């Protein structure tokens, strides 16, 4: 936001007085604002960034004859610091909530721009409503009416719907302000909302039936009839509007009043009400113009960091189902509602693809790692194995003679003194101890994990069951105190990952989600080298290998790689367990795996991953 902006100037006494008045209103302290005269020409007339900092263009207000409301503009920006979003992580969470609502209402829409627009509108609504309450309290003594409040004066200058605007969302936004600020109808927007945009008609160029081979003609005719019917019903659905600006404005105003102190939870409600408006614009191929000064003053466009992504995706509010549209019939809980025709499979959480789209400016590996880690979190359990039993003493045994040369501490004086005389080696006694049953003990696991990242596997960006299973497995081993070595492989020479066992989840998940997308060739040379010359396994020394792959894993048993044909079998001899987790519907690998002594667990979808990991946990536990 600071690119090519006019230079910052020092605060004048008047500006400082306005700033201090705004600070006093919210009862907070913050570093001095940046004053950049003329900045409005480059975007918004004022904005708030994280770490908390306020920038304002006073010339913009002067030109509108509102110099005396500089303090209200400061107070508005301070509201973003105090109330909504408050923190950068909450700001990201609010945007995430909007993206979820958009994913349901407008699946084809770019989530980033829409979510940011809704997020700015929601936080501005919260701030301006609270600010009006504070200013009303401050001016109560003077008896100023609503339109005399500073933020309302600013709103009247900044928000009114421009003439000829067809943006129904902006009309709803302005109407909501009228309700919240107790302004007469028609103050910020026309009495009636703009008409609904006409949805774009889906056209399909059809080959004449005569050009279709005769044997397919009847099938084609039936298919075309089914398509035509689907298009007709889709057009009917598009015509049955889900938006009603006057009613929705009332519902948004109620959401603002209810969630004034919980912007993140309320964002979901606001998103559910307003996302259909963006869907409407997208369906009609139009864009909302917003207000005369854009749609908000949030200028923090730094991408989310890996840590922030983890915190956002792990928040239960981001994982819970979206609230129902408050305008939907309360007795239609069984219906498929608005969401049924467009709800992405897997519920109302953002899919990995949409999450990547939303956080496209963040590091892709970090987004993938955070997403898989969050998805895996519910299934992570401490994986351990049974440790060698250690005999435990403690049961009193028979009395024996204590002889000279035995440890003095072993002498049992009460028993010895029963004879009345102490004669070493004759009357001296000692108590012996017998072993109790060995106590069962658990210890951690070292897991050597290989994951196939050839082109036949699902790309992690598209929701990979193998990556999810690998993540659950690795995190569970770490939770049990163990260590993991993750290796991703594809074609010959395409091997990456960790050289040694480690406990850093970031490094492990990065290795698991690495994707080559080429041919499949299990790295038998590396496999042989890693396990060459190792002592046999025992109760103390245990080795576990898990390979996540598909039917291309026949290469592990030397198919197409004859010089290494016996490696898998020979390595298996130095392992405690060897398990293959396969997406192999034809069970092509089963026989080879059995011959070489490897157990096979099958995996088909993301939903199978937790069950496959539970089976593995049993195998690893022993």
């Amino acid at each position, binding site marked *: 936001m600071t690119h090519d902006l006019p230079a910052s100037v020092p605060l004048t006494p008047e500006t400082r007085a306005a700033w201090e008045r705004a600070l006093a209103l919210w009862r907070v302290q913050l570093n001095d604002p940046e004053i950049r005269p003329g900045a409005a020409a480059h975007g918004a007339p004022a904005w708030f960034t994280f770490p908390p900092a306020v920038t304002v263009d006073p010339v913009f207000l002067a030109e509108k004859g509102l110099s005396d409301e500089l303090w209200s503009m400061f107070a508005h920006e301070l509201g973003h610091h105090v109330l909504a979003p408050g923190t950068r992580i909450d700001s990201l969470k609010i945007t995430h909530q909007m993206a979820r609502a958009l994913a349901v209402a407008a699946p084809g829409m770019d989530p980033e721009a829409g979510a940011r627009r809704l997020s700015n509108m929601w936080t501005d609504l919260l701030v301006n409503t609270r600010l009006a309450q504070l200013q009303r309290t401050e001016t109560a003594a003077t*008896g100023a*009416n609503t339109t005399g409040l500073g933020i309302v004066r600013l709103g009247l200058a900044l928000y009114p719907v421009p003439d000829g605007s067809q943006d129904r969302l902006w009309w709803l936004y302005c109407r909501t302000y*009228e*309700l919240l600020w*107790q302004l*007469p*109808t*028609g103050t910020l927007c026309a009495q009636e909302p703009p008409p609904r945009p006409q949805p774009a008609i889906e056209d399909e160029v059809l080959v004449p039936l005569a050009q279709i*081979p005769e044997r*397919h003609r009847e*099938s*084609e005719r*039936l*298919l075309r*009839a*089914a*398509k035509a*019917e*689907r298009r*007709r*019903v*889709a057009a*009917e*659905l598009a015509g*049955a*509007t*889900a938006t*009603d600006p*006057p*009613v929705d404005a*009332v519902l948004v105003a109620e959401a603002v*009043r209810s969630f004034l102190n919980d912007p993140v939870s309320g964002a979901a409600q606001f998103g559910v009400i307003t996302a259909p408006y963006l869907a409407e614009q997208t369906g009609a191929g139009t864009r909302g113009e917003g207000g005369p000064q854009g749609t908000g003053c949030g200028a923090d466009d730094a991408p989310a960091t890996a840590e922030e992504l983890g915190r956002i995706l792990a928040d239960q509010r981001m994982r819970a189902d979206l609230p129902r*549209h408050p*305008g*939907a*019939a*309360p007795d*239609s809980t069984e*219906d*498929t*509602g*608005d969401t*049924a*025709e467009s709800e992405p499979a897997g519920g109302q959480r953002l899919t990995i693809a949409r999450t990547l789209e939303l956080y496209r400016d963040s590091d892709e590996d970090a987004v993938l790692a955070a997403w898989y880690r969050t998805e895996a979190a519910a299934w992570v359990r401490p994986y351990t194995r049974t440790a060698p039993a250690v005999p435990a003493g403690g049961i009193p045994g028979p009395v024996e003679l204590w002889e000279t040369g035995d440890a003095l501490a072993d002498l049992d004086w009460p028993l010895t003194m029963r004879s009345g005389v102490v004669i070493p080696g004759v009357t001296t006694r000692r108590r012996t101890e017998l072993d109790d049953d060995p106590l069962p003990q658990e210890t951690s696991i070292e897991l050597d994990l290989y994951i196939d990242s050839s082109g036949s596997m699902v790309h992690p960006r598209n929701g990979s069951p193998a990556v999810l299973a690998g993540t659950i497995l690795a995190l569970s081993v770490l939770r049990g105190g163990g260590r993991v070595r993750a290796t991703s492989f594809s074609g010959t020479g395409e091997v990456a990952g960790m050289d040694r066992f480690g406990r850093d989840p970031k490094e492990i998940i990065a290795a698991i989600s690495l994707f080559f997308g080429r041919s499949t060739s299990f790295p038998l040379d590396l496999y042989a080298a890693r396990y060459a010359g190792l002592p046999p396994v025992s109760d103390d020394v245990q080795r576990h290998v898990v390979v996540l792959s598909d039917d291309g894993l026949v290469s592990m048993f030397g198919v197409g790689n004859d010089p290494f044909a016996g490696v898998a079998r020979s390595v298996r001899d130095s392992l405690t367990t060897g398990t293959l987790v396969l997406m192999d519907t034809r069970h092509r690998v089963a026989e080879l795996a059995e011959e070489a002594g490897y157990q096979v667990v099958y995996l088909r979808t993301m939903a199978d991953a937790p069950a496959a990991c539970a089976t593995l946990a049993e195998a690893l536990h022993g």
Partner: protein
Amino acid sequence: MADAKALLAAWSTRSGGEAEAWARARPGPSVEAIATRISRVPQAFLDERVSLVALAGDILGAPLSAAAFEEDARVRRGAAVGLWLVASEGLVEPFAPAIAGAWTALAVDALALRLAPVVDPAQWLSDDERRVEAARTFLLWCGFVPLGEDRRTARSLLEACDSLARNRALAKAYEGHRHRADIARKLEEARRKEAAARYSSE
């Protein structure tokens, strides 16, 4: 409990028309003053054992139309809140300007027959928005425009918080959503049929 439609019909007969009410309205107390006073209604006024006829007789010295529906708890409580506003001028302090006048009984009936059937008076005490609606309704039918507002503003703000209009709009919205859900189901069925009609050209 009386039917809300019957109560609203009784109010329609009693009110004499909203346009006339706005026409006679003159500057009165602020909405905040009335709303604050509503929130301070004593429990004794809300006690169901107190006769509404007797209470109205004591405070207004005149009968209320709402008394005919005294067995309806909402009507009784609504009228009691209105009577408290009138009585509070003597018990607490007079509003500025005082509300007692020719239209006071009509204002009490407005709360009992126009608003209480739509929003339970218990909500007037617990919900700020509904309390403001009650205060604005009372002021209008008492012959006042709230302090600091002109007729147009006051009328617009009362319409904005009118629960009856809101409920009608929501009912319309419910119907719209239900209709849309029906079509969404039809679309799913059409998609299934289209998927079933696909064929292989090999």
